[in-house]
């Protein structure tokens, strides 16, 4: 694999948590490389470390050892505020429970990442409008997110991740709250985004996603170890 073409890389990533006096190994020496413009899926049973791996790759968790790289840059040893900047510029993240702020409208949630910069600019607003249209949520823009269905919230979270136009999209269990029809819609959207050039990494239990032939690669985690 051409190293220059790798968008997401993990080098012997290990994460240990203190569990009382004992220590729990969530992830053990995981190494991987996801090429740019591909759609990869991480599968594995509950508690296997999928979400932790995604958090480490997105720079949201500091590893115990090892190194994570995004777009060729190591992010592990960056200070908190630099990691936040990298996350904002390079990664669009969709969380399992959508991570939308209740009490705020869908539109306010979409522009949350830009608040510390003085609010979203014209480009972001135009992109958000286009994405809301594309995902069929234009009419729900002013609706408080707690009034949206699970599928609508899922798409809303995806739009927020895409408004920044970040080259990497990471999704944690994106189909967990969706029915079959919404899973099909989401998969089609993700494949379209991949075809537009985004690198996509999703964790999932869902066979429909993991076994779809259009997905570029599947990684399987068991007890914090990546299976060969």
């Amino acid at each position, binding site marked *: 694999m051409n190293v220059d073409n790798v968008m997401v890389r993990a080098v012997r990533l290990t994460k240990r948590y203190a569990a009382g006096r004992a220590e729990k190994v969530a992830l053990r020496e995981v190494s991987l490389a996801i090429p740019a413009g591909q759609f990869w899926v991480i599968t594995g049973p509950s508690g296997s470390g999928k*979400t932790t791996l995604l958090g480490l790759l997105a720079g949201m968790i500091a590893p115990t050892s090892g190194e994570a790289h995004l777009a060729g840059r190591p992010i592990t040893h960056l200070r*908190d505020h630099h990691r*936040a900047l990298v996350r*904002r510029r390079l990664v669009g993240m969709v969380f399992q429970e959508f991570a939308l702020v209740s009490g705020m409208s869908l539109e306010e949630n979409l522009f*949350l*990442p830009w*608040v*510390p910069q003085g609010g979203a600019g014209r480009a972001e607003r135009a992109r958000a409008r286009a994405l809301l249209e594309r995902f069929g949520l234009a009419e729900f823009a002013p609706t408080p997110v707690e009034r949206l269905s699970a599928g609508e919230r899922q798409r809303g979270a995806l739009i927020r991740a895409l408004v920044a136009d970040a080259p990497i999209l990471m999704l944690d269990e994106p189909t967990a709250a969706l029915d079959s029809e919404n899973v099909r819609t989401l998969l089609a959207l993700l494949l379209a985004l991949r075809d537009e050039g985004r690198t996509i990494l999703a964790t999932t239990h869902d066979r429909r996603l993991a076994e779809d032939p259009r997905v570029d690669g599947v990684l399987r985690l068991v007890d914090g170890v990546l299976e060969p």
Partner: protein
Amino acid sequence: MKRQLALICFALGSARRRAGRSFALGFALALVTFALSAVLFLTEALRREFRLAVATLPDLTVQQLAAGRPALIAEQEQAAIAAIPGVIAARPRVWGYYFVSSLSGNFTVVGVDTDDGAVRRDLALVSMNGRLPSSNVSGEVVMGAAAAAFFGLEPGDAITLPVGRAEKRLQLVGVFRSEVGLWTADVLLMSEADAREFLHVPPGYCTDLAVHLSTPDEATVVARKIADRLPGARIVDRQLMARTYDLTFDTRGGLLGAMLLPALVAFLVLVWDRLTGVGTGERREIGVLKAVGWQTGDVLLARSWENAAIAFQGAAVGIVGAYLYVFGARAPGLAEVLMGWSTLYPALRLTPAVEGGQMLVLLCLAVIPFVVAGLVPAWRVATQDPHGLLRGTV
């Protein structure tokens, strides 16, 4: 600026989203600010009234004592005092208290010679509606605003009051304004002859002697000389009186303020406790913000604005409430504590007198500790892994 505005908008939205918590904290802060502001406003308003009153006093007031109590003083002593170097004038004054048993009202009757230029100059300092009573016309009176209201009189009206077993008809020719209410509230100002009649002061005697000096700073020296010439007299020094009032209000106001400090501390403990226990929803929200790229500083800034907005609103409500309580409702409960040594009849209405500096101090006292108390717990949460905050594992 744009960044701060965006964070302020977000913070205001957050305060609205957590309306219950915001209301509880704002309400508690309003109560504490109300109590502190009420003490401060009332103390300052009383101090101002007394300063105004003291400013119109003579440099020295000489009273005769008999059996340790004030007694009438012979007017002939006036000449002896006037001869002391440094004394410009020593004027006999006729005044005293007049009780109307049928109305249960106690009033201060003051007799003045309005033909005397010096008296007119002193009275010109006192704000009033109408005119002064004539010296040579019997039956004219100027009343304090509270006294006039008590009798239900307006300038031009007349009233008949008992004088011993007889009665005397008085016509109201003027009313002192409420801004000098503390020292004119219960005053009935009339000609000296009418005052003698009301108070039963015989000719040749007066209540006291008002002594004016060329150099007020020498009051102590002159007072000693007067005491040498009039053994048994009591001499009241205006400057001493002003210092006494100031000390009295400083002490009482300070004491009340000190009593309120535990309330402020209790409130801060409550804030600390409330904000330390950042709820699951709030922790998750901070996790979302961090996850979408907010830095720890951004989160803290937004929380500071949110807390400042709550504190500012709470403090503003407390201050406005205290203003209405002190100057509108006359501070029931508190006024008795601060003015406890004398009860004024008719009721006193204080003139609103609040300085911008006072407001600033009150706002700072309320807002700054509140914002600071909320920062540490927010910092503790904001420095956690966003991933852990979202999953509820930290």
